[in-house]
């Protein structure tokens, strides 16, 4: 099941690139913004994962 996390990587890359592309016209700006969005999404997902993991450990 751990391998399922890898399925998030292409999604994060595509979502951040498309989102950044709707904010800028220049390719350099798009890539910079996409990197920031990808880091933000990954951080947010790790935070949610940590919270859910802690709850599951407390409950079990």
């Amino acid at each position: 099941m751990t391998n399922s996390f890898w399925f998030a990587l292409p999604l994060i890359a595509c979502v951040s690139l498309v989102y950044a592309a709707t904010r800028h016209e220049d390719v350099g700006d798009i890539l910079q913004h996409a990197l920031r969005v990808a880091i933000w999404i990954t951080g947010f997902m790790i935070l949610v994962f940590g919270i859910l993991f802690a709850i599951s450990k407390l409950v079990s």
Partner: protein
Amino acid sequence: MAPSKESPASQSPVQLKDPLIAGVLAWLIPGLGHFYQGRKAKGALFSICIMGTFLYGLYLGGSSQPAGGSKQVGWGRAVYFNFDEKEWRLPWLCQVGVGFPTLPMTLLQWKLRDNPVLDGFMAPPSSDGDQPNNPSLATIQRRLSHYFELGTVYTMIAGLLNILAVYDACCGPVISDSDKNKKDKEPDKAEQDGGEKKS
């Protein structure tokens, strides 16, 4: 500051040609609206990202292995149109955001429900249990396991991302206030630098 009455398309810093045609083209084939506007780099980016996500979702939501009494599960089983008393396939509402790659095939297969073509590609599962040419939803889910859900998520996200691309084709890039202020300051700075050099 009084709110601007101009439409987003008229405020856009790029040439959008006919925004309505661009929007429709962008919905039909991801990236096509941007190619129509001559924004080739963004068109290629949208096309590769959105179609790549969608096609990978189709691949995940299918298999060539037999299932139940059917000769094979079929490909693209996570994308189908079905709104009857047994199932409301709500993910289709997101998947149809991709436009032409989803809409005609899913509607055709829904019409041909008892006799799907192309080995059940994008066909709704059989509602009368496993059939020789179309397995039931339970059989498909059992055979594909969590890949069915992954295929559904990938294709849904592709459709939703294309809605962002359609907006970009219609109205141009959404420039945030901070970016706008930065760009407004840049010409002032350039003027100041030019003035200092002259003096």
